[in-house]
């Protein structure tokens, strides 16, 4: 209290002087409702902020102060435990939501960029701050992220918004459709694309996933149609172009489909209706032509044609939500670019790989392309980090592990490569290449007898493999085996002894983030092997530095230093890790509610710990074909089939889980960890 009313005229409100004197304290008091901002005390805090700051010039330093105050305040809240008491949590959610609303409304200096740059952390954090539609910090955050897109030079968020549209009314509350559509409506404009194309696709993706009633669809469509004045003919053209793409045709969805609720669109079903052609992605021939040009022409001369080609792919993905054409083109074109070993071309290949991973975060080829492209321009440490992330992200992908092992050999770090290969055998992830690596490493590190033993085991398992047979013959003749692969013999790598500690080539923020993840994974492995005081100290430091980092929380649980009363509200991966340690079926059930996408993961855990109903459901799940599960969850199914020896009835599943308990636990841990920050690239 203590300020006279500042209502007169156009001068600054007297509270602004209080704010300038101590911005952090003043903002804290404003957002908590204590500030004396007469006559605005009764207004909602964002409305009061609009009145206090809204009339200040855009370049007024007070606006920048507001930006740093809000982000500082939000950062401080992120580091605090979330109250378990419903009312205290409700108040916190309200104040956090109000902060996001102020950022959205007033765009104070730097705050929008901060929201975009920290979106993964903010998403994870706010996902724990959802009590009801009136107390939903995640929706407030996402709406701010959506509305701020035009003013931040950030990554394209189309896939995030499309996912939200698809999941609204499913995994996410129904009113998230408005958030997803707002994200698509506020995408930065793109040449040769109408403003409505992305949100029409979002609406169609939602309708395809949720099968709304005619009335429900009309409520969404007509409200949007009203604010995009177009001739009916133009709408029909756009809708036909969308629905005549292959995804909808394959699903036997014909124009006007859901739009039949609108008489102006329903005419598309008439027999004589002339419908526009479907959106078309660039053809494979166009990609081939660019690759051919790269073989004869310097990259610089092809660069703009590549830009145009990829823009057409992005346009198609934005207008349809379908990304596999784009990803396929990236595989081909990116590989050709990296092969040139031209620095600029390699950087372009990296960008393409990241673009593909934005759309499909668990695409193995794109991870590999990214690592190859980094390697091609000599960014070896960064390449190793990406390869490690590839292994962590796709834990059952043998190729990912093999490629990392080959790289480590080329870096003269054969012991590390052998640890990796041994782990493949321990986890039953073995193919011909893993055998080849074991033979070569045995010859290199242990001598000819060890190599002979490895070769005999390999040939016994893969009798028809020519390379393995060749190894066996050479060993028999006493010949030396090569250890470095031909690829690295041809293009040797500059030595890097420890990529996780290296900074060279890791100037990119994303690579630095992946390095932190790799470091966390390594710490996790050390803790599984046995608690050591140094590892626990490192976890303590990591948690102090980034208390809301899901991996830090998981490691804290694994190290036994997570506070018991916060377990319920820890991030999903940390809560899962704790439930695994406690064998707590109830926690798994509540986690499935909190993160329905992980239902299969929690079900396997419950089955492992003796839940008969879960064993029954897992038996069915194992015999079903994969649906639209998230990457590692989808990969878990064939992996478990192998581990459980093809069991398909509940009794056999129960017996298999019991006898293979350790292997199943490893699978569960790997999948859980693979999902941490899994939208790092995508969102």
């Amino acid at each position, binding site marked *: *209290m*203590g*300020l*006279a*009313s500042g*209502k*007169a*005229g*156009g001068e600054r409100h007297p509270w602004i002087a209080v704010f300038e004197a101590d911005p952090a304290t003043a903002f804290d008091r404003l957002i*908590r*409702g*204590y500030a*004396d901002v*007469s*006559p*605005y*005390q*009764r*207004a*909602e805090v*964002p*409305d*009061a902020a*609009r*009145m*206090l700051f*809204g*009339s200040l010039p*855009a370049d007024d330093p007070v606006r920048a102060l507001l930006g740093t105050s809000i982000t500082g305040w939000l950062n401080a809240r992120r580091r605090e435990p979330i109250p378990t008491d*419903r*009312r205290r949590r*409700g*108040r916190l959610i*309200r104040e956090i939501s109000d902060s996001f*609303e102020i950022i*959205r*409304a*007033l*765009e104070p200096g730097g705050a929008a960029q901060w929201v975009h740059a920290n979106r993964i952390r903010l998403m994870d954090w706010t996902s724990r701050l959802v*009590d*009801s*539609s*009136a*107390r939903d910090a995640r929706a407030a955050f996402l*709406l701010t992220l*959506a*509305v701020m897109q035009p003013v931040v030079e950030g990554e394209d968020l189309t896939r995030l918004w499309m996912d939200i549209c698809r999941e609204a009314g499913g995994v996410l509350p129904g*009113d998230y459709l*408005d958030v997803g559509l*707002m994200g698509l*409506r*506020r995408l930065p404009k793109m040449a040769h694309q109408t403003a409505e194309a992305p949100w029409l696709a979002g609406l169609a993706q939602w309708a395809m996933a949720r099968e709304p009633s005619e009335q429900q669809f*009309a*409520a*969404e469509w*007509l*409200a949007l*149609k*009203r*604010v995009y004045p177009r001739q009916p003919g133009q709408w029909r053209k756009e809708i036909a172009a969308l629905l005549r793409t292959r995804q909808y045709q394959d699903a036997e969805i014909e124009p006007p489909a859901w739009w039949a609720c609108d008489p102006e669109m329903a005419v598309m079903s008439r027999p004589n209706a002339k419908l526009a052609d479907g959106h078309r992605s660039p053809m494979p021939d166009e990609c081939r032509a660019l690759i051919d040009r790269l073989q004869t022409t310097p990259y610089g001369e092809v660069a703009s044609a590549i830009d145009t080609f990829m823009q057409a792919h992005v346009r198609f993905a934005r207008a349809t939500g379908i990304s596999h054409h784009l990803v396929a083109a990236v595989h081909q074109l990116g590989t050709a670019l990296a092969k040139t070993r031209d620095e600029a071309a390699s950087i372009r290949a990296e960008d393409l790989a990241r673009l593909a991973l934005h759309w499909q975060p668990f695409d193995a080829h794109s991870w590999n392309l990214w690592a190859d492209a980094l390697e091609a321009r000599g960014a070896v440490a960064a390449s190793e980090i990406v390869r490690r992330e590839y292994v962590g992200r796709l834990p059952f992908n043998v190729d990912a592990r093999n490629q990392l092992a080959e790289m480590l050999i080329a870096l003269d770090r054969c012991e590390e490569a052998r640890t990796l290969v041994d782990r493949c055998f321990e986890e039953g992830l073995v193919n011909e290449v893993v055998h080849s690596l074991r033979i070569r490493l045995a010859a290199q590190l242990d001598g000819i007898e060890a190599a002979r033993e490895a070769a005999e085991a390999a040939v016994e398992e893969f009798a028809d493999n020519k390379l393995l047979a060749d190894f066996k013959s050479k060993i028999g003749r006493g010949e030396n085996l090569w250890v470095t692969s031909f690829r690295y013999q041809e293009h040797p790598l500059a030595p890097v002894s420890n990529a996780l500690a290296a900074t060279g080539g890791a100037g990119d923020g994303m690579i630095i983030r992946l390095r932190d993840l790799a470091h966390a994974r390594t710490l996790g492995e050390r803790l599984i092997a046995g608690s050591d005081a140094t590892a626990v100290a490192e976890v303590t430091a990591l948690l102090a530095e980034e208390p809301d980092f899901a991996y830090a929380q998981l490691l804290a649980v694994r190290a036994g230093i997570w506070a018991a009363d916060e377990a319920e509200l820890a991030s999903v991966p940390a809560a899962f890790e704790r439930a695994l340690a406690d064998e707590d079926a109830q926690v798994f059930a509540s986690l499935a509610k909190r993160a329905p996408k992980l239902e299969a993961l929690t079900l396997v855990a419950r089955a492992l710990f003796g839940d008969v109903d879960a064993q029954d459901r897992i038996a069915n799940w194992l015999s079903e074909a994969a649906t639209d599960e998230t990457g590692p969850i989808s990969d878990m199914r064939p992996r478990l089939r192998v581990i459980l020896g093809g069991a398909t009835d509940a009794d056999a599943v129960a017996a298999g889980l019991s006898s293979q308990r350790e292997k199943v636990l490893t699978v569960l841990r790997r999948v859980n960890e693979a999902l941490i920050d899994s939208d790092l690239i995508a969102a």
Partner: protein
Amino acid sequence: MRFDNSTLQNAVDELRLCTPQEHRATADNYVFEEAVSAERTATFETFVGDVANDQALTDGHVDYVRGNIEIDGETPDTFRIDLRPSGTNRPDEAQDLVRVEGLLGPLEACFGFRASDGYDVLLRHYETIKKAWQDGSHDGSALVDKFLEIWNARRDERPAFSTFLDGLREDAENADWQHLLRDRLGLAHYEPRPGTPIPVALMVYSVREVITAARADAVPITCPTVLDSKPWPYYFPAPEVMPYGRAMALRTDGGEESLQPEILHTRIEFKRSHIKAMALIERPWGPKELRDLRNHHLLKIRLALLDELAATGRPEFGEDMP
């Protein structure tokens, strides 16, 4: 009202001695209040606990409002039967209630624009929703329904101040209703800064709709008290003998007949049919000293008490602000 906890009462007394008019007014609101039950006072005192000074009192009051009144998924203390709210006589269910709602936040959430986009953009979106509401077309109605859906989703269970339409029908039907009602109902926070108009809607709905929508454990309509919203110098308690509260106007030109009964009611879901008008508040209110507003309001209350038989012989209500 007087607090049993001496630290709270001392803080009120301290606040009353402070120089700024707002402090004195805030303290007077505790002192003049007659409609808070003993149970409610005890709940407030337990929540706030001991306080060291007047700021701790007002901060604690804010905490109480945010923790027990402006909440979601539960019944606020205002409507809890066990806390014996005042003024629970039910008015005729066919009567219409009126409320002025600010639209800035809902408009921004619905249309995804920023205050920094400027007045023109705000105006454009405001006109879009207004036109959609006025033309009543199929897609216009769909847009208004979507707007209301987004708005309703953001609203919690906090008590809503409202008043009876018949008492201010003339003002409500005036072309300048937004400023007249703002001033008459004491909505001092609808105070636009230069270049920042405040879009508002006139919402009208029946007592019956409020009662039907109320939670089973709630008294749907009560008399406002000092504890039902944050410390607020533009609130003025009404004597307990008067049914309901009396909104303090932001002008000093009316007699006691202009006093407007004011109630608090439980949450209702807004519908298209509840919107009776939309307009922009562009003019500031006043300029009037808070002291003049309060003293004039008190005079009107005292005059009105002369007509209340039940008030005969009671001590004089309130005290002029020096």
